[in-house]
């Protein structure tokens, strides 16, 4: 199996989100329900895995997810931390393959996110970013942010940050992994998915590309270069 | 901007999509509804269909009861098995009769209804007798077996 370490880069939604997290003692911890990003001088750097319903429910979309998250809060009204997910900082990660292995045994490993951390404006989560509408003259109107392309990998040396955005019509995750350079079959399914996502593009973060978290949209100007998905 | 904050063309597109969905839903319901019986059908046709179902069903239960008694007589089943099979046949035969009796027979089927219901009634009582026999362990009552055979034939012939 090809791990992100060999690949020198990965897509957060495709390769990290919803993966199984396993402790050093082979006990299952949970799924990667979301990934925390930190804004460091304009670069978005992933810092932690988030686990738990408070991280999972908001990923169901603005309306459904919001409704489910509200219901969850109501059910656990008395707990002060009912909105806060469990955190696994990236330094706990030992390897990322088809699952995410942590360097320590599972029991008692994850801690609940602190309120200050949740309120920190420099931090955000990948979940709310995916599905953000994209304003670009060259893309269909209903284009959204489909995935975030990273350089480096969790727990690895060298820089590790968001380098490019995958945008296009459709929902995040609907590409089923057919956007990578390796050509998985069956050919028929790949052809259908490719046709459905013929307008999807990769755009490098740089001049002309603005990811506005407050306004909840991505703006791509004419000076940005849009590359097709494959190759 | 509309109330939802989306630009007007998007709202119009959503409205169009909503209309298409509604039309499709109505179309699907319209096709399925006759099968569901939601839309009322001519009485005679509905009665005929139920009559056929009840007669075929009752014939099947009668034949089952007869087969169960015969195999029990040949000691090919144990008592509990035969009893359970015949008891369930009795239950199902009764349901078949009730399903038809519950339907109001249209005027043009009044005579047929009387004949059919009588036939079903006889079938149900014969199967009930078979069950009583099975419980007692009397499997070789040839008169009953002949009766069951006869009524099965009559039920099959009466099915339109």
């Amino acid at each position: 199996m090809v791990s992100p370490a060999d690949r020198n880069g990965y897509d957060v939604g495709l390769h990290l989100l919803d993966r199984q997290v396993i402790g050093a003692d082979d006990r299952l911890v949970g799924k990667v329900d979301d990934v925390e990003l930190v804004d460091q001088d304009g670069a978005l750097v992933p810092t932690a895995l988030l686990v738990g319903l408070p991280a999972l429910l908001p990923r169901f979309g603005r309306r459904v997810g919001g409704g489910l998250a509200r219901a969850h809060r109501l059910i656990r009204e008395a707990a002060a931390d009912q909105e806060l997910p469990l955190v696994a900082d990236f330094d706990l990660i030992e390897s990322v393959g088809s699952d995410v292995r942590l360097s320590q045994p599972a029991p008692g490993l994850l801690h609940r996110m602190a309120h200050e951390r949740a309120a920190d404006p420099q931090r955000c989560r990948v979940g709310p970013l995916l599905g953000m509408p994209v304003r670009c003259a060259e893309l269909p109107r209903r284009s959204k942010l489909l995935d975030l392309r990273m350089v480096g990998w969790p727990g690895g040396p060298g820089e590790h940050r968001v380098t490019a955005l995958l945008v296009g019509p459709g929902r995040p995750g609907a590409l089923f992994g057919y956007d990578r350079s390796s050509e998985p079959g069956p050919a028929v399914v790949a052809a259908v998915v490719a046709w459905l996502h013929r307008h999807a593009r990769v755009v490098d973060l740089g001049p002309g590309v603005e990811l506005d978290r407050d306004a909840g949209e991505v703006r791509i100007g004419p000076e940005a270069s849009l590359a097709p998905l494959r190759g | 901007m509309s109330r939802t904050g989306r630009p007007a063309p998007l709202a119009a597109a959503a409205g169009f999509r909503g209309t298409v969905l509604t039309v499709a839903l109505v179309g699907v319901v319209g096709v399925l509804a006759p099968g569901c019986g939601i839309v009322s059908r001519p009485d005679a046709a509905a009665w005929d269909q139920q009559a056929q179902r009840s007669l075929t069903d009752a014939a099947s239960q009668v034949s089952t009861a007869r087969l169960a008694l015969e195999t029990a007589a040949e000691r090919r089943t144990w008592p509990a098995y035969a009893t359970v099979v015949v008891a369930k046949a009795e239950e199902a035969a009764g349901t078949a009769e009730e399903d038809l009796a519950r339907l109001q027979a249209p005027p043009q089927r009044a005579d047929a209804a009387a004949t059919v219901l009588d036939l079903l009634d006889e079938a149900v009582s014969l199967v009930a007798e078979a069950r009583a026999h099975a419980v007692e362990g009397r499997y070789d009552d040839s008169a009953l077996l002949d009766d069951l055979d006869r009524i099965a034939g009559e039920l099959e012939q009466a099915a339109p």
Partner: protein
Amino acid sequence: MKRYFAVLLGILTAIGGFVDIGDLVTNAQVGARFGTSLVWVVLVGVVGICVFAEMSGRIAAVSHRATFDLVRERLGPRMGLLNLVGSMLVTLLTFIAEIGGVALALQLVGSVHHLLVVPFVAAAVWIVLWRAKFSAIENVLGLLGLALIAFAVALWQLGPDWGELAAGLSPAEKPAAEGWATYAFFAVALFGAAMTPYEVFFFSSGGVEERWTSKDIGVMRANVFIGFPLGGLLSVAIAACAATVFLPEGIAVETLGQVGLPVAVGLGKIGLAVVVLGFFAATFGAACETGLSTGYSLAQYFGFPWGKYVRPREAAGFHLILLIATVIAAGVLLTGVDPIMVTEVSVVFSAIALPLTYFPILVVANDPDYLGEHVNGPVANAIGVVYLVVITVAALAAIPLMVVTSMGQG
């Protein structure tokens, strides 16, 4: 020597474990009403389940991940949840039908009303799932399920006109009394009974539980490609027995007792006793499999510990789900609903849920990230795509056919 014995055991348990209450009831119903004219659907279904079980087994062996584990990764949390809800509902429905089937089988032995037996059966299933080792459940119940071979023996003893049976295999030989809509409905039901979704969940989760590696792929393939088709032959034998005894008499099969009658006719009390033992083993085994599958799918979606290979204390959530599922199943059955009717509904809804399960398997089986060099070859992909189309057609046709034919009453 020990290795050959293990392979043989695997094949035998695959044969014995193939048939469940859905196969028993649907094949007997179809044989009694359509003769052998629907047997081709069983063959199509068996090939389908072989292809997809092999894929999910390969995925489990190489990536050490079970099928439902990967559904959320591939489809995202929203579609994954939809998939989870759909699959769990169908599996739960099947679980209810299987427990009902066990109760019906016991009723045939002791003439006790099946409702009285349901709580004990449910409790027994839960205790076995909680306490018994995985391999014990699989092996014991799988081997006992071989008792259903009595159907094949009974068919031989009944001495039907083999030429007539063979000629009846063509769809054109559909009895004139039955309409094509009913024929199509039972084709879909038979297809759903042969290709039940829970089978691949259970098979792949079991593979992960037993810690398969790529070295076990050969044995896994032997189990699937030899065991499942032979199990399919048992289904055909059930249909052929029903065709031989019931079709001439105009008897429609609606109870489990009727399913066993041809064996009584052909083999007498001893054959019947063996077959009822087979009923019990098949339904109890399938109850365990569907119960576990309910737990597997939910635990694998949320990522919390699952499985029988960890101590119950370490997979507490998983075992709690099993307990709740068992209580729900017992509760539903105690309302007095007919388990046979639940079975009929469950096979149709299995057919509807098939695309949810099989599409992700086909996609993952092609992904070198999970399978490395063991990805699908062109043959597996070709068959897989063809079956995806067949499955989708069956799934879309199921509800309209169900409504138009009033669940097959015609």
